């Protein structure tokens, strides 16, 4: 069984994180959680085609990381990408419209959950291939055209730790001294494969093999993620090269929406229940209470998020579906002869 980790010292971190930041972080985590719950419902009702990979349980990682990023920074996401976009400030309505396959979607209905992107926010896309977006972060971080050093965060899961392109990218980032933060969302399982059976060393040891400094982070605690993110991003922004974070977290739901029907036994209910006690949202409420925020304020945030999402869903559902004859749009940047499947 994979037991929860208790790594952080909350008292120390509280002093580092302002109340306003905690409020924003909690609202962002709540938005991700409720968004994902809404998405599960829409998939189950067949409003959303295919399957989606929910971020439920891992909210603190995206929120803690993105809260530390500047406007010119870039991130690359994973197949479990909704949380990264929402934490970066993408429109829930445009995201829902995308998942619902509408022309008004963030990607004009051409990407769906697995390729959702908001390039205007520096989000270079979710990705359907494990680890494949990581080298984009390196390339983006090599382009420095703003007043402040641009850094790029590459999000990936523990499953990517054995993917060649990630290992190549870690080496390249180090030898070129690129300002990249490698953020491993270590939820313990690559679909059903426990990381203990898949990866020969710990993530931080793997990073050390490339000469990249790193640390383990309590990925269930937004204050700890935020503190670690600040450390990593400061390191990279100051020209010391890449940094690695092993954010230990847990997904409370299946690998994807369809898993609930598959009766898989790779983890026990007991394990899931134990991790649920460490729910990043409960931890967020705890942090807010400790900083003097009354429960009514938390309820008000919850209600506001519900309203935002209800309105977003109405807007998304009202969006038009793309015309079949537009299926070849967006393939090329300039007029290019593209043939349909029949002559």
């Amino acid at each position: 069984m994979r037991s929860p980790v208790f790594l952080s010292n909350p008292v120390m971190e509280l002093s580092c994180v302002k109340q306003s930041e905690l409020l924003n972080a909690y609202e962002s985590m709540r938005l991700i959680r409720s968004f994902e719950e809404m998405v599960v419902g829409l998939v189950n009702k067949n409003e959303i085609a295919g399957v989606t990979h929910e971020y439920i349980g891992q909210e603190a990682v995206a929120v803690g990381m993105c809260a530390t990023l500047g406007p010119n920074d870039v991130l690359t996401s994973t197949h479990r990408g909704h949380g990264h976009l929402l934490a970066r400030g993408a429109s829930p309505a445009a995201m829902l419209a995308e998942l619902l396959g509408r022309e008004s979607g963030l990607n004009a209905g051409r990407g769906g959950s697995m390729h959702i992107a908001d390039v205007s926010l520096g989000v270079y896309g979710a990705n359907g291939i494990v680890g494949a977006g990581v080298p984009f972060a390196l390339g983006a971080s090599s382009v420095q055209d703003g007043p402040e050093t641009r850094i790029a965060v590459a999000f990936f899961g523990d499953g990517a730790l054995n993917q060649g392109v990630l290992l190549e990218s870690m080496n390249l980032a180090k030898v070129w001294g690129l300002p990249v933060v490698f953020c491993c969302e270590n939820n313990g399982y690559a679909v059903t494969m426990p990381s203990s059976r898949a990866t020969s060393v710990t993530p931080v040891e793997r990073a050390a093999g490339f000469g990249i400094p790193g640390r383990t982070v309590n990925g269930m605690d937004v204050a700890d993620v935020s503190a670690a993110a600040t450390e990593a991003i400061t390191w990279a922004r100051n020209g010391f090269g890449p940094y690695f974070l092993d954010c230990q977290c847990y997904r409370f739901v299946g690998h994807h929406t369809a898993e609930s029907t598959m009766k898989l036994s790779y983890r026990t209910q007991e394990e899931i229940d134990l991790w649920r006690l460490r729910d990043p949202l409960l931890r967020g409420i705890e942090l807010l209470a400790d900083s003097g925020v009354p429960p009514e304020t938390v309820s008000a945030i919850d209600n506001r998020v519900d309203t935002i999402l209800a309105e977003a869903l109405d807007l998304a559902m009202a969006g038009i579906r793309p015309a079949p004859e537009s299926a070849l749009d967006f393939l090329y940047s300039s007029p290019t002869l593209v043939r349909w499947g029949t002559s």
Partner: protein
Amino acid sequence: MTVMRYQQALAAAVRDEMSEDPSVIYLGEDVEHSLRFVSAGLAESFPGRVRDTPISEAAFTGFATGAAMAGRRPIVEYQIPTLLYVAFDQIVNQAQKIRLMTGGQTQVPVTYLFPGSGARLGLAGQHSDHPYSILAHAGVKTLVPSNASDAYSLMRAAIRDDDPVAIFAPAACLHRRAEVPLDFVGRIGQASIVRSGSDVTVLAVGHLVHEVLEVVDELGTSIDAEVIDARSIYPFDWRLLSESVARTGRLVVVDDSNRTCGFAAEVCATVAEESFAVLKAPVVRVTRADSTVPFAVELERAVVPSREQIVQALSKVIEYTQR
């Protein structure tokens, strides 16, 4: 107008684009020392914009994608044509698909340069492929210039294009010289009639254009062949081809891809579908065998398109109508 060798023309195109556009960068294995001659002297002329990479094809191909999304125009050189396979996910499943998948939010203006593609006697199984058909199949803009002039103008067009573009420079063309009109930027998607004729259309790719021209010259007045240089494999100039076939009524396709699902197969299928009524004879292909290239030179020669096969193919389409 300057007479240049093929590789010099590619190098001149890169140099001219890098001079005009500071966003153009060049990366790949051993490019600072220019093992393939295209990047000769660039590292000194453009400090910081030419970069040797570790032998990590997936990572540096993906690096180019990210840099392109952030505003650069990277040129990525692959020392060996088959390194395409190592970088395949990053090209066909990532860079090529990003524009559509993001609904046009971004573009990936990367040029993939394969500066010595195809068999060249003795490089054996893993260094002798000429894999342009594979990228065309995946919808990547794919160019195979046959001469120094096209190498220059199409290289410039590729660098300026806002989408991923692959350029395969045939190894068998690298020694060729031609007059190169500098400052000319070509157009992707245009084939070229390199010899006009009325008996048969011969569509050829890369170095095989020269083989076909020499065969046709040797045959003298017996066959009046129209020879087309495909130049752009994807998108392909279907209109120019169909107009030519309408005039000649016969087609031979000469293509250095494996026979199955290669470029020639696509051309013949399309002509059979769309130009059947004008055909006076069945279309004929000269392609590679469906084989790995074996090492011994006799065996290598046996599996790649040969002049004898081109002669036989021409005879076959011409004689068919003489029965």
